[in-house]
């Protein structure tokens, strides 16, 4: 008995290109990453794609599967198969370098623009900072700290596609964790960076980010926190 196959349409090209169909053998336990790897090894070695850990820790394999951004190593083929077919495309909202590999530069630029970097205060601290883990600020920071910058939320966000300057859920989530870091010394500058039309105020709470985050983070809540913080600062004339 010959092995059953599935039909996998893969995006080939860059910004311009087309979907090419491959017949891939279907196995009992198979992830979408497995199928992409099979295609590159046995059908077309010219296929470009990214992966690293292949066990759902690094986020490198994020791609668009049947229109949904997800980690391909954590997506079982049987779960997303539709009539024996599936469609694999590069992550949305980022420039396509080739085939399934996108240019993450813009994503990380937005992290920088949102001041998603810890800045120590002006003087070295005299002693270790005391940060009770159950304090509201630390809990708020911890709620969003697990982000590994995979880009899935960025791909899932409609505002990212509608507003070219929008910093996006990941960058804003990171900024929120830092604003809640009592040791950080750049709060005011960071709040300025994340306010305005390209910042937290562009979010319409559609929660696409929450729906798709593979680590179950809640950027909508983080962004709501930023909105509150920015509004309070504006009302206190601190911005």
């Amino acid at each position, binding site marked *: 008995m010959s092995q059953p196959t599935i039909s996998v349409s893969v995006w080939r090209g860059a910004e311009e290109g087309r979907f090419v169909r491959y017949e891939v053998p279907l196995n009992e336990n198979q992830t979408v990453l497995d199928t992409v790897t099979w295609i590159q090894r046995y059908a077309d070695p010219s296929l470009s794609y990214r992966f690293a850990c292949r066990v759902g820790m690094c986020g490198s394999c994020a791609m668009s599967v049947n229109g949904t951004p997800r980690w391909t190593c954590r997506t079982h083929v049987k779960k997303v198969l539709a009539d024996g077919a599936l469609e694999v495309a590069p992550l949305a909202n980022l420039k396509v370098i080739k085939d399934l590999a996108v240019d993450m530069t813009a994503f990380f630029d937005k992290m920088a623009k949102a001041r998603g970097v810890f800045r120590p205060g002006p003087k070295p601290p005299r002693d270790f900072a005391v940060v009770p883990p159950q304090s509201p600020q630390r809990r708020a920071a911890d709620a969003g700290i697990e982000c590994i910058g995979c880009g899935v939320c960025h791909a899932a966000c409609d505002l990212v596609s*509608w*507003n070219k300057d929008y910093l996006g859920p990941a960058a804003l989530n990171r900024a929120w964790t830092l604003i809640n870091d009592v040791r950080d010394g750049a709060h005011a500058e960071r709040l300025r960076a994340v306010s305005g*039309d390209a910042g937290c*105020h562009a979010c*319409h709470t559609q929660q696409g980010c929450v729906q798709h985050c593979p680590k179950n983070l809640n950027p909508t809540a983080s962004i709501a926190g930023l909105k509150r913080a920015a509004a309070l600062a*504006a*009302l206190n004339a601190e911005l």
Partner: protein
Amino acid sequence: MWIAQRASAVVLALAVVVHLGTIICAVQGGLSAAEIVDRLRGHAGWLVFYLVFVIAAAVHAPLGLRNVLREWTPLGPGAVTAAAAALAVALLLLGARAVFAMFHAAT
């Protein structure tokens, strides 16, 4: 602008709840101009309420329109601001006119 949008939203939320209640009560048993005018006659409270309502709407709707135009149309920032401003003016003028018309008829 975000603060203005949310602040006007809060005002509108309260006003709309009152307005919906008023509408539902008013349409019981049919609607007539006399019924509406009689209710407003001599009540400065309603005048203030509806004026505040109109102003809040004239802030809230144009800001909302601005977002929609910026996100869903290729219009540039100048055109978007102009459209929003036009709506604000229209709502303020027509709304104030309607409020004063009602109270002029009532008094």
